[in-house]
C-alpha cells in the first residue's frame, strides 16, 4: 500500500481506512479537501443516473475549497494525479491486468516475484 508506505516514511502514518470511507483526512494534511476533490471529479461521471450535471456544482465547490486551503498549483497537481489514475485504472481494466498473487491463488506456478505495482 503506497499510502501506508509513504506516510510511514514521512513520519506520520496515515489511517488508510479513509480510502474506503472517503470521510475525514486520514491524518494527511488537507486530506479531507483532497478526498472531496477526488470524489467530486470521479462521481461526476461514474455511471448512468449519476451524470455530470448533478455534480458540476459540487466539483466547482470542491475545487474552490481545495484552492482556498492550499494553492492553485496544488490543485493543478492534484488534478494531474487524478488524471493519471483515471488513465492507469483503464490500462488495468482494459488489458485484464492481474497481480501475480491472483494467479498463484488459482494454482499457477508463475515465478514473477517483484512487488512493483507500476504506477497504478
Amino acid at each position, binding site marked *: 500500500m503506497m499510502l501506508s508506505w509513504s506516510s510511514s516514511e514521512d513520519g506520520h502514518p496515515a489511517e488508510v481506512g479513509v480510502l474506503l470511507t472517503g470521510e475525514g483526512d486520514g491524518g494527511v494534511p488537507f486530506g479531507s479537501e483532497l478526498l472531496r476533490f477526488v470524489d467530486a471529479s470521479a*462521481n461526476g461521471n461514474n455511471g448512468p443516473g449519476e451524470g455530470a450535471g448533478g455534480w458540476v456544482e459540487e466539483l466547482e465547490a470542491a475545487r474552490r475549497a481545495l484552492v482556498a486551503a492550499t494553492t492553485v498549483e496544488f490543485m493543478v497537481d492534484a488534478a494531474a494525479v487524478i488524471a493519471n489514475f483515471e488513465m492507469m485504472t483503464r490500462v488495468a481494466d482494459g488489458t485484464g491486468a492481474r497481480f501475480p498473487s491472483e494467479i498463484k491463488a488459482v494454482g499457477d506456478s508463475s515465478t514473477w516475484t517483484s512487488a512493483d505495482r507500476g504506477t497504478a
Partner: protein
Amino acid sequence: MSTDSPVDIREDLRLAHRLALAHVAAPGATLDGARRRRIGEVAIGAYLDPGPQPPWVPVYGDPLLDAARRLARFADTLTEAVYAQALAEGVEAVEWVEMVGVVIAAVAPTAFAHAAGLPILDLPTPGDGPPTGLIASPLVSATLNWVPVAAPADQTASVVQALSAVPAEWDNLWRLAEAQYMSDAQMSDPLWNRGTLSRPQMELVAGRLSLVRRCFF
C-alpha cells in the same frame, strides 16, 4: 474558469497532454489517424456524457468503438468475456491494445481538464498515411494480462507490460505518467514530490480514485 485565480499549468504537463492528443490523431500500429481520432472522440464523449447508455448497449454497432466507449466510461465492467466477444466479432488482439492506448491518451487530458476546471482540449485533425505496422515482435500470451505482450511475458508488473505489444502506446503511457504522477525512478523514493502535494497526499488521491473506480490497483 472555475477558480478565482489564474491557472498556470506546468510546461511538462501541458506538453505531455498536447503530445497525447496529437498521438491520438496520428497513424498508429494497426489503425490510421482517422480511425484513431474517432476512437478518441468516442472516449472523450463517453467520459463527459452526463447521461450515458448502460455499458452493454452497443451504441455504435462497431465492436472497437463500443469497447472504447465502455473503457472510457465503465472500465470496471470490462471482463475477459467482453474482450473475447470483441475478438470473436473481428477485432484483432493488437487492435484492442492499440484501442486501449488511444482511449487512455484521450481520457487523461480530458480528466485533468475536467477536474481542474479548464476547457476540454480538442483533438487535432487526423494525420495522413497508413498504419505504421510497428508492433513488438515476438508477441506472446501472458498470465498477468488477457492481451498479448512483448516477449518475455510476466517478467514485470501487469500494468507495465500491458501495452508492450504496441511500443508507441507504451511510450505515450509512460510519458503521461511521468508528467502527471512521477517516473519509475522517482517512485522508489517514498518522499519524492514536486513541492506541491507531498507523496502521502499523492497516494491518498491515487488510492481513493482507484477505489471509486472499483479498480483493484
